[in-house]
């Protein structure tokens, strides 16, 4: 019985560790400051779902918008927002700040086998 329990705990720990490693590899942080996205370009692998964590450091709200990614999310001041994108084919996907489209711009560059365009 203790043997089975140890194996079970080991299995659960392995799964958790694997999931955590996968989760960390698929998280990308973006900062919005002075109506600019940092980094403005993010490179992600093709065919994988990723989690974008966007922190708005400005004192005003912004709206993360992307026709290419089909995503639209309000970024409240001094708060973080989470957006999942993908799985995507290889190519470039533009996003921008709806409220300040001339300055807040960026793109997601997907690198992999298939081409989207």
């Amino acid at each position, binding site marked *: 019985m203790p043997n089975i329990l140890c194996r079970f705990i080991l299995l659960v720990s392995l799964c958790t560790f694997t999931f955590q490693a996968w989760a960390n590899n698929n998280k990308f942080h973006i900062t919005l400051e002075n109506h600019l996205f940092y980094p403005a370009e993010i490179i992600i692998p093709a065919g994988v*779902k990723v*989690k974008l*964590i966007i922190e708005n450091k400005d*004192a*005003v*709200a*912004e*709206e993360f918008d992307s*026709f290419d990614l*089909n*995503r*639209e*999310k*309000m970024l*409240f*001041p001094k*708060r*973080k*927002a*989470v*957006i*999942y*994108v*993908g*799985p*995507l084919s290889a190519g470039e996907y533009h996003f921008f700040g*709806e*409220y300040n*489209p001339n300055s807040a711009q960026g793109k997601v560059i997907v690198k992999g086998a298939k081409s989207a365009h």
Partner: protein
Amino acid sequence: MLTNTVVLFLREMLPLAIMLVFLLAFILPSIYSRNHLILLITSILLGIITLFNVAPILSELFDGAGLEISISFLLLLTFISLTFGTSIAINKNSDKAARPWLILIGICIFSMIKTTNFLVYVTGYIHKGSSGYSLTLGLIIALGICISFATLYYFALLWLRNRNYQNIITALWALFIVGQFCFIVPLLAQIDLINDANILWDSSPWIKDSSEYGHILNAMMGYEATPSDSYILVYAVSLMSFYGIFALTKNFEIKEINTNSSEELL
């Protein structure tokens, strides 16, 4: 800033204008009083203040999914209340008590969502201390475009009604409600509750999402240049539900008439 204000205003207010045009053309004047209107406006204002203040807190709940879940729930409520409310009103069901409140709830929630979104933009603009000239001019232009479109659409709907094209009117209303409801698909996709990565077709060479036709068709019927399989599925199921509810209320009316006729004979 001027163009931005116009685009954002139209994006949020045009669907609202289309909804009000439909209801004004067929339902509202006949069943509502001034008291209903006062109650509606008060509810919308309270709703906007509440959502505006609560939204930042909601946005960080449930690992950043709180706002999307809340808005999706509100859109579902809007879909249910407007579908039931208008189907009962159009089929002239005998249960008169429920009909006004269902439509009022639908209008209130939908107005709350759309207006709050635009209000966040306006308050941010004011907070920046920018000149109000661009904002004011943008609002005036956008309001003018909205009113012009709404007026034309209103007369088009009246034209259809006068020629007894009830099926076309119902279809347009169905497409509108379903289109607005299907906004939950990208909302739930961006919090990883739905997968929307499988794009079925790409009609952007003809009508782009970002073009003026794209915006208008999106407001009128939920047009997407690159719809996913999830989007089409939700759209189809919602459309079937809409017509199912209409059929249900119509059958209920026929049963009521038959029951009343039997009672009169006895």
